[in-house]
Protein backbone atom coordinates (compact mmCIF):
# COMPACT_ATOMS: atom_id res chain seq x y z
CA UNK A 1 0.00 0.00 0.00
CA UNK A 2 2.68 2.47 0.93
CA UNK A 3 4.65 1.68 -2.22
CA UNK A 4 1.66 2.61 -4.39
CA UNK A 5 1.38 5.78 -2.38
CA UNK A 6 5.02 6.62 -3.01
CA UNK A 7 4.57 5.90 -6.70
CA UNK A 8 1.56 8.21 -6.81
CA UNK A 9 3.08 11.11 -4.90
CA UNK A 10 6.70 10.83 -6.07
CA UNK A 11 6.64 9.11 -9.43
CA UNK A 12 9.89 7.74 -10.75
CA UNK A 13 11.73 7.60 -7.45
CA UNK A 14 11.35 3.86 -6.92
CA UNK A 15 13.90 2.22 -9.21
CA UNK A 16 13.25 -1.33 -8.06
CA UNK A 17 10.92 -3.16 -5.74
CA UNK A 18 10.53 -6.70 -4.44
CA UNK A 19 8.49 -8.59 -1.92
CA UNK A 20 9.84 -11.74 -0.32
CA UNK A 21 8.22 -13.80 2.44
CA UNK A 22 5.89 -10.96 3.29
CA UNK A 23 8.57 -8.24 3.46
CA UNK A 24 8.36 -5.34 1.03
CA UNK A 25 11.47 -3.57 -0.21
CA UNK A 26 12.03 -0.61 -2.49
CA UNK A 27 15.24 0.69 -4.00
CA UNK A 28 15.60 4.42 -4.46
CA UNK A 29 18.41 6.75 -5.38
CA UNK A 30 20.17 8.85 -2.77
CA UNK A 31 18.92 12.19 -4.05
CA UNK A 32 15.29 11.15 -3.54
CA UNK A 33 15.81 9.84 -0.03
CA UNK A 34 14.76 12.92 1.90
CA UNK A 35 11.57 13.35 -0.12
CA UNK A 36 10.60 9.71 0.38
CA UNK A 37 11.40 9.87 4.09
CA UNK A 38 9.27 12.97 4.45
CA UNK A 39 6.37 11.17 2.81
CA UNK A 40 6.85 8.11 4.99
CA UNK A 41 6.91 10.22 8.12
CA UNK A 42 3.62 11.86 7.14
CA UNK A 43 2.07 8.49 6.33
CA UNK A 44 2.74 7.17 9.83
CA UNK A 45 6.04 5.33 9.36
CA UNK A 46 7.50 7.02 12.39
CA UNK A 47 9.55 4.29 14.00
CA UNK A 48 12.90 3.98 12.26
CA UNK A 49 13.85 0.50 13.29
CA UNK A 50 17.35 0.24 11.88
CA UNK A 51 19.85 1.62 9.41
CA UNK A 52 22.49 -0.73 8.16
CA UNK A 53 24.41 -1.40 4.98
CA UNK A 54 25.54 -4.30 2.81
CA UNK A 55 28.73 -4.46 0.80
CA UNK A 56 28.53 -5.96 -2.69
CA UNK A 57 32.15 -5.58 -3.79
CA UNK A 58 31.66 -6.56 -7.43
CA UNK A 59 29.08 -3.87 -8.03
CA UNK A 60 29.99 -0.40 -9.12
CA UNK A 61 27.83 1.19 -6.45
CA UNK A 62 29.17 -1.22 -3.93
CA UNK A 63 27.13 -0.37 -0.85
CA UNK A 64 23.40 -0.64 -0.21
CA UNK A 65 22.33 1.48 2.73
CA UNK A 66 19.27 -0.29 4.15
CA UNK A 67 16.58 1.44 6.19
CA UNK A 68 13.75 -0.30 8.03
CA UNK A 69 10.57 1.48 9.03
CA UNK A 70 7.56 0.40 11.06
CA UNK A 71 4.14 2.00 10.95
CA UNK A 72 2.84 1.63 14.50
CA UNK A 73 -0.75 2.27 13.52
CA UNK A 74 -1.06 -0.21 10.66
CA UNK A 75 1.87 -2.47 11.69
CA UNK A 76 3.18 -2.25 8.16
CA UNK A 77 6.90 -2.58 7.64
CA UNK A 78 8.97 -1.18 4.80
CA UNK A 79 12.58 -1.67 3.79
CA UNK A 80 14.28 1.02 1.72
CA UNK A 81 17.62 0.44 0.01
CA UNK A 82 19.82 3.21 -1.30
CA UNK A 83 22.80 2.21 -3.44
CA UNK A 84 25.92 4.29 -2.93
CA UNK A 85 29.43 4.04 -4.32
CA UNK A 86 32.67 3.80 -2.41
CA UNK A 87 33.53 7.21 -1.03
CA UNK A 88 29.99 8.39 -1.64
CA UNK A 89 27.45 9.66 0.83
CA UNK A 90 23.73 9.82 1.45
CA UNK A 91 21.71 12.53 3.15
CA UNK A 92 21.41 12.15 6.89
CA UNK A 93 18.03 11.53 8.52
CA UNK A 94 18.93 13.08 11.85
CA UNK A 95 16.60 15.99 11.15
CA UNK A 96 13.44 13.91 11.31
CA UNK A 97 14.59 10.84 13.22
CA UNK A 98 16.79 11.34 16.24
CA UNK A 99 17.53 7.64 16.35
CA UNK A 100 19.32 7.91 13.01
CA UNK A 101 22.20 9.65 14.76
CA UNK A 102 23.91 6.55 16.14
CA UNK A 103 22.72 4.24 13.37
CA UNK A 104 24.46 6.44 10.81
CA UNK A 105 27.57 6.64 12.95
CA UNK A 106 27.63 2.84 13.09
CA UNK A 107 27.30 2.57 9.31
CA UNK A 108 30.06 5.12 8.87
CA UNK A 109 32.28 3.19 11.27
CA UNK A 110 31.66 -0.19 9.70
CA UNK A 111 31.50 0.76 6.01
CA UNK A 112 32.92 4.24 5.54
CA UNK A 113 29.75 5.69 4.01
CA UNK A 114 29.35 9.41 4.65
CA UNK A 115 26.12 11.05 5.77
CA UNK A 116 25.62 14.66 4.68
CA UNK A 117 24.23 16.84 7.39
CA UNK A 118 25.03 14.57 10.30
CA UNK A 119 25.89 16.72 13.34
CA UNK A 120 28.72 14.56 14.65
CA UNK A 121 29.82 11.86 12.24
CA UNK A 122 32.54 9.91 13.99
CA UNK A 123 33.16 6.27 14.79
CA UNK A 124 30.87 4.56 17.22
CA UNK A 125 31.95 0.98 17.81
CA UNK A 126 35.69 1.14 17.23
CA UNK A 127 38.19 3.68 18.43
CA UNK A 128 38.89 7.00 16.64
CA UNK A 129 42.06 5.97 14.80
CA UNK A 130 40.98 2.43 13.94
CA UNK A 131 42.55 1.51 10.60
CA UNK A 132 39.89 0.69 8.04
CA UNK A 133 36.19 -0.08 7.98
CA UNK A 134 35.38 -3.40 9.55
CA UNK A 135 32.36 -4.81 7.72
CA UNK A 136 33.71 -4.20 4.24
CA UNK A 137 34.26 -7.47 2.46
CA UNK A 138 37.93 -6.75 1.84
CA UNK A 139 38.66 -6.15 5.53
CA UNK A 140 40.07 -9.33 7.07
CA UNK A 141 38.27 -10.94 9.99
CA UNK A 142 41.24 -10.62 12.29
CA UNK A 143 41.96 -7.07 11.20
CA UNK A 144 45.66 -7.80 11.09
CA UNK A 145 45.74 -8.72 14.77
CA UNK A 146 48.84 -10.81 15.24
CA UNK A 147 47.38 -13.01 17.92
CA UNK A 148 44.26 -13.98 16.01
CA UNK A 149 46.23 -16.16 13.70
CA UNK A 150 46.45 -19.88 14.05
CA UNK A 151 49.63 -21.28 15.46
CA UNK A 152 50.26 -18.51 17.91
CA UNK A 153 50.90 -19.67 21.44
CA UNK A 154 49.58 -18.38 24.71
CA UNK A 155 51.98 -16.17 26.63
CA UNK A 156 52.14 -18.44 29.64
CA UNK A 157 52.58 -22.16 29.33
CA UNK A 158 52.40 -23.96 32.67
CA UNK A 159 54.14 -21.11 34.38
CA UNK A 160 56.90 -20.69 31.84
CA UNK A 161 56.79 -17.82 29.44
CA UNK A 162 55.86 -19.21 26.06
CA UNK A 163 56.52 -17.67 22.70
CA UNK A 164 56.29 -18.47 19.01
Amino acid at each position, binding site marked *: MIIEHIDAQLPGTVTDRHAFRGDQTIVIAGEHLLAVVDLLHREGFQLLVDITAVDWPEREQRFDVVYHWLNLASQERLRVKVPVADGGSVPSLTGSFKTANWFEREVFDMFGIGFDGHPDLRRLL*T*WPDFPGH*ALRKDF*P*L*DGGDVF*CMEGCTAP*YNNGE*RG*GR
Partner: protein
Amino acid sequence: MSELDINDAVMTTRLDAVVNWGRKNSLWPMPFGVACCAIEFMSMMASRFDLSRFGAEAMRFSPRQSDMMLILGTITNKMAPVLRTIYAQMAEPKWVISVGVCASSGGMYRTYATLQGVDRVIPVDVYVPGCPPRPESMIYGVMKLQEKIEKESLSMRKDHIARFYESLARQESLQAEKGLTSQQAIREMLMDAGERGVGTIF
Protein backbone atom coordinates in the same frame (compact mmCIF):
# COMPACT_ATOMS: atom_id res chain seq x y z
CA MET B 1 65.57 -16.09 72.70
CA SER B 2 66.28 -17.32 69.19
CA GLU B 3 62.73 -16.64 67.90
CA LEU B 4 63.25 -12.92 68.26
CA ASP B 5 66.15 -12.96 65.77
CA ILE B 6 64.85 -11.32 62.59
CA ASN B 7 67.26 -13.13 60.33
CA ASP B 8 65.98 -16.47 61.53
CA ALA B 9 64.32 -18.19 58.55
CA VAL B 10 61.65 -19.74 60.71
CA MET B 11 60.49 -16.27 61.77
CA THR B 12 60.12 -15.07 58.14
CA THR B 13 58.16 -18.11 57.14
CA ARG B 14 55.78 -17.71 59.98
CA LEU B 15 55.28 -14.09 59.12
CA ASP B 16 54.59 -15.02 55.54
CA ALA B 17 52.16 -17.69 56.65
CA VAL B 18 50.23 -15.37 58.89
CA VAL B 19 50.10 -12.55 56.40
CA ASN B 20 49.14 -14.84 53.54
CA TRP B 21 46.49 -16.49 55.67
CA GLY B 22 44.99 -13.12 56.33
CA ARG B 23 45.20 -12.08 52.69
CA LYS B 24 43.76 -15.22 51.21
CA ASN B 25 40.77 -15.27 53.50
CA SER B 26 39.76 -11.68 52.92
CA LEU B 27 40.06 -11.20 49.21
CA TRP B 28 37.84 -8.30 48.28
CA PRO B 29 36.83 -8.81 44.68
CA MET B 30 36.61 -6.05 42.18
CA PRO B 31 34.28 -7.39 39.54
CA PHE B 32 35.32 -5.93 36.22
CA GLY B 33 31.97 -7.03 34.88
CA VAL B 34 31.71 -6.59 31.18
CA ALA B 35 29.54 -9.33 29.68
CA CYS B 36 27.90 -12.67 30.36
CA CYS B 37 30.33 -13.92 32.97
CA ALA B 38 29.17 -11.03 35.11
CA ILE B 39 25.73 -12.62 35.26
CA GLU B 40 27.23 -15.87 36.51
CA PHE B 41 29.25 -13.79 38.95
CA MET B 42 25.97 -12.35 40.22
CA SER B 43 24.75 -15.90 40.68
CA MET B 44 27.92 -16.73 42.52
CA MET B 45 27.40 -13.85 44.93
CA ALA B 46 23.73 -14.70 45.43
CA SER B 47 22.52 -17.12 48.03
CA ARG B 48 22.93 -20.50 46.35
CA PHE B 49 26.68 -20.39 45.72
CA ASP B 50 27.65 -17.55 48.00
CA LEU B 51 31.23 -16.39 47.61
CA SER B 52 31.07 -14.62 50.94
CA ARG B 53 31.88 -17.95 52.61
CA PHE B 54 35.40 -17.31 51.36
CA GLY B 55 35.64 -13.87 52.83
CA ALA B 56 34.88 -12.22 49.51
CA GLU B 57 31.53 -10.67 50.22
CA ALA B 58 32.75 -7.09 50.12
CA MET B 59 32.38 -6.45 46.41
CA ARG B 60 34.07 -3.18 45.73
CA PHE B 61 33.67 -1.73 42.30
CA SER B 62 36.45 0.68 42.99
CA PRO B 63 39.97 -0.56 42.28
CA ARG B 64 41.28 1.54 45.16
CA GLN B 65 39.39 -0.54 47.68
CA SER B 66 39.85 -4.07 46.43
CA ASP B 67 42.62 -6.58 46.00
CA MET B 68 41.32 -9.19 43.60
CA MET B 69 40.16 -8.19 40.14
CA LEU B 70 37.79 -10.60 38.43
CA ILE B 71 37.67 -9.97 34.74
CA LEU B 72 34.18 -11.06 33.76
CA GLY B 73 33.53 -11.00 30.07
CA THR B 74 35.02 -10.22 26.71
CA ILE B 75 37.66 -7.52 26.74
CA THR B 76 37.71 -5.76 23.42
CA ASN B 77 40.59 -3.78 22.03
CA LYS B 78 38.64 -0.64 22.83
CA MET B 79 38.37 -1.66 26.47
CA ALA B 80 42.01 -2.74 26.88
CA PRO B 81 43.45 0.63 27.98
CA VAL B 82 40.61 1.03 30.46
CA LEU B 83 41.48 -2.35 31.93
CA ARG B 84 45.12 -1.37 32.25
CA THR B 85 44.22 1.90 33.95
CA ILE B 86 41.97 0.15 36.44
CA TYR B 87 44.63 -2.46 37.16
CA ALA B 88 47.19 0.26 37.67
CA GLN B 89 44.91 1.98 40.14
CA MET B 90 44.69 -1.07 42.39
CA ALA B 91 46.93 -1.03 45.40
CA GLU B 92 49.30 -3.93 45.97
CA PRO B 93 49.04 -6.74 46.87
CA LYS B 94 46.72 -7.41 44.00
CA TRP B 95 45.70 -10.46 42.03
CA VAL B 96 43.76 -11.03 38.85
CA ILE B 97 41.46 -13.88 37.99
CA SER B 98 40.50 -14.02 34.35
CA VAL B 99 37.03 -15.56 34.31
CA GLY B 100 35.71 -17.20 31.21
CA VAL B 101 37.32 -18.01 27.92
CA CYS B 102 36.81 -14.57 26.46
CA ALA B 103 39.00 -12.98 29.08
CA SER B 104 41.48 -15.84 29.11
CA SER B 105 42.04 -16.20 25.40
CA GLY B 106 39.57 -14.21 23.38
CA GLY B 107 37.02 -17.02 23.50
CA MET B 108 35.00 -17.60 20.38
CA TYR B 109 35.72 -14.08 19.13
CA ARG B 110 38.82 -14.34 16.98
CA THR B 111 38.17 -10.97 15.42
CA TYR B 112 39.61 -7.55 14.84
CA ALA B 113 37.79 -6.15 17.82
CA THR B 114 38.53 -8.62 20.61
CA LEU B 115 41.67 -8.78 22.70
CA GLN B 116 42.94 -12.33 22.41
CA GLY B 117 43.35 -12.88 26.10
CA VAL B 118 43.65 -10.37 28.89
CA ASP B 119 47.07 -11.70 29.86
CA ARG B 120 48.44 -9.90 26.86
CA VAL B 121 48.01 -6.57 28.60
CA ILE B 122 47.91 -7.26 32.32
CA PRO B 123 49.38 -10.01 34.49
CA VAL B 124 46.90 -12.76 35.37
CA ASP B 125 47.15 -15.17 38.27
CA VAL B 126 44.35 -17.67 37.70
CA TYR B 127 42.40 -18.53 34.57
CA VAL B 128 38.92 -19.99 34.86
CA PRO B 129 37.73 -21.53 31.59
CA GLY B 130 34.09 -21.87 30.65
CA CYS B 131 31.56 -19.99 28.63
CA PRO B 132 30.34 -18.94 31.09
CA PRO B 133 32.01 -20.94 33.85
CA ARG B 134 29.58 -22.32 36.37
CA PRO B 135 29.67 -20.55 39.72
CA GLU B 136 31.30 -23.66 41.16
CA SER B 137 34.13 -23.29 38.66
CA MET B 138 34.57 -19.67 39.58
CA ILE B 139 34.69 -20.57 43.25
CA TYR B 140 37.27 -23.21 42.41
CA GLY B 141 39.27 -20.49 40.70
CA VAL B 142 39.14 -18.37 43.83
CA MET B 143 40.24 -21.36 45.87
CA LYS B 144 43.16 -21.94 43.51
CA LEU B 145 44.12 -18.32 43.98
CA GLN B 146 44.00 -18.86 47.71
CA GLU B 147 46.36 -21.80 47.33
CA LYS B 148 48.66 -19.62 45.27
CA ILE B 149 48.60 -16.83 47.83
CA GLU B 150 49.42 -19.30 50.59
CA LYS B 151 52.70 -20.11 48.91
CA GLU B 152 53.71 -16.55 48.14
CA SER B 153 56.64 -14.86 49.71
CA LEU B 154 56.25 -11.28 50.79
CA SER B 155 58.93 -9.98 48.45
CA MET B 156 59.06 -12.32 45.48
CA ARG B 157 56.02 -11.76 43.36
CA LYS B 158 56.35 -8.12 42.39
CA ASP B 159 58.31 -8.76 39.21
CA HIS B 160 55.38 -8.98 36.78
CA ILE B 161 53.71 -6.01 38.42
CA ALA B 162 56.86 -3.92 37.99
CA ARG B 163 57.01 -4.93 34.33
CA PHE B 164 53.37 -3.94 33.97
CA TYR B 165 54.05 -0.44 35.24
CA GLU B 166 57.02 -0.14 32.89
CA SER B 167 54.80 -1.11 29.98
CA LEU B 168 52.24 1.47 31.09
CA ALA B 169 54.95 4.13 30.97
CA ARG B 170 55.99 2.92 27.51
CA GLN B 171 52.39 3.08 26.35
CA GLU B 172 52.03 6.65 27.55
CA SER B 173 55.23 7.78 25.90
CA LEU B 174 54.17 6.08 22.64
CA GLN B 175 50.86 7.91 22.77
CA ALA B 176 52.57 11.22 23.43
CA GLU B 177 55.17 10.92 20.72
CA LYS B 178 52.87 9.64 17.96
CA GLY B 179 49.62 11.30 18.97
CA LEU B 180 47.70 8.02 19.06
CA THR B 181 44.70 7.06 21.12
CA SER B 182 45.41 4.60 23.89
CA GLN B 183 43.69 1.80 21.97
CA GLN B 184 45.88 2.29 18.92
CA ALA B 185 48.99 2.53 21.09
CA ILE B 186 48.22 -0.80 22.71
CA ARG B 187 47.48 -2.23 19.28
CA GLU B 188 50.90 -1.16 18.08
CA MET B 189 52.58 -2.58 21.15
CA LEU B 190 50.76 -5.88 20.58
CA MET B 191 51.84 -6.01 16.94
CA ASP B 192 55.37 -5.30 18.01
CA ALA B 193 55.23 -8.03 20.63
CA GLY B 194 53.90 -10.43 18.03
CA GLU B 195 56.71 -9.66 15.64
CA ARG B 196 59.22 -10.33 18.39
CA GLY B 197 57.52 -13.60 19.24
CA VAL B 198 56.47 -12.56 22.74
CA GLY B 199 52.91 -13.04 23.88
CA THR B 200 52.44 -9.94 26.04
CA ILE B 201 53.22 -6.27 26.03
CA PHE B 202 54.66 -6.16 29.55
